[in-house]
């Protein structure tokens, strides 16, 4: 199975990179962008075939390494194949 992980800064944690991207978009005349938050996207190919076990395992990976839970949230999605 495949796991996709989104790691994003927690609400309330300032994201200066997102702010810089937002300003760059404004300078390119893309209007109407209220906010930009930047994060990481990680793909994992897993040998596990049980989606529940796969999700639990990847969540553990997020807590131990993939995310720093002091400032980051993570979301794990499991897909077949």
């Amino acid at each position, binding site marked *: 199975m495949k796991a996709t992980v989104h790691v994003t800064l927690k609400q309330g*944690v*300032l994201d*200066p*990179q997102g702010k*810089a991207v937002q300003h760059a978009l404004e300078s390119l005349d893309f209007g109407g962008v209220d906010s930009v938050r930047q994060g990481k996207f990680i793909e994992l190919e897993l040998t596990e075939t049980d989606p529940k076990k796969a999700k639990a395992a990847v969540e553990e990976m997020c807590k131990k*390494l*993939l995310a*720093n839970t*002091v*400032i980051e949230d993570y979301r794990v999605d499991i897909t077949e194949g």
Partner: protein
Amino acid sequence: MSILQKASGTPMKTAVIVFPGSNCDRDVQVALRESMGSEPMMVWHGDASLPDADLIVVPGGFSYGDYLRSGAMAAQSPVMRDVVAKAKSGVPVLGICNGFQVLTECGLLPGVLMRNANLKFLCIDVFLRTEAANTAFTQGYDQGQIIRIPIAHHDGNYFADDDTLKRLNDEDRIAFRYVNEDGSKGNGGNPNGSIDDIAGILNNTRSVLGLMPHPERMSDAAMGGDDGRAMFDGLVAALG
């Protein structure tokens, strides 16, 4: 023989951890050698255990290329398991710059070092106020003493949640704060956006110090200043 060696006659033993991408390990080695009068042990990251040491230093650099997050990969390396175990048994640990990032990532110190608020890599001298001179690391300084030390980092913007910040303040665990040359706050004295102007913090037993500035780069007058030397001399006086 240095007069600063242990009363028992055995020289103080220090271990400097070396990761792929460390680049301040040799600066620390020289600073320790100058203060101790003996040679530090350089310990490669893949070693499963550390030799016995009176002090462990996690130096600056870009361990593992800063992959994922600064310090995140190094925190999981074999040698760090033993560093954490030894720190928990009371062996003093000093983390400088990337070493500070590694110590937060492996849980020896709270909080996290985020990207600098202005998004720039900063390589400048900064001024620090000594906020806690009552530790092995800082006893070479006077309480409130202003020192000039260089920084060289992209991710030095210290952040901790409100509860952690309150605990650090209540327990007198903020070792150094960024200030202006005259000791005042504001006006760019804080270079990287760190919350509460924090440049360095202690663990709850005051046996672990992490700081972003580089005392080892300012430990010889030939480098343009020696305000950092008192940290190493103080450590030798406390632990040697």
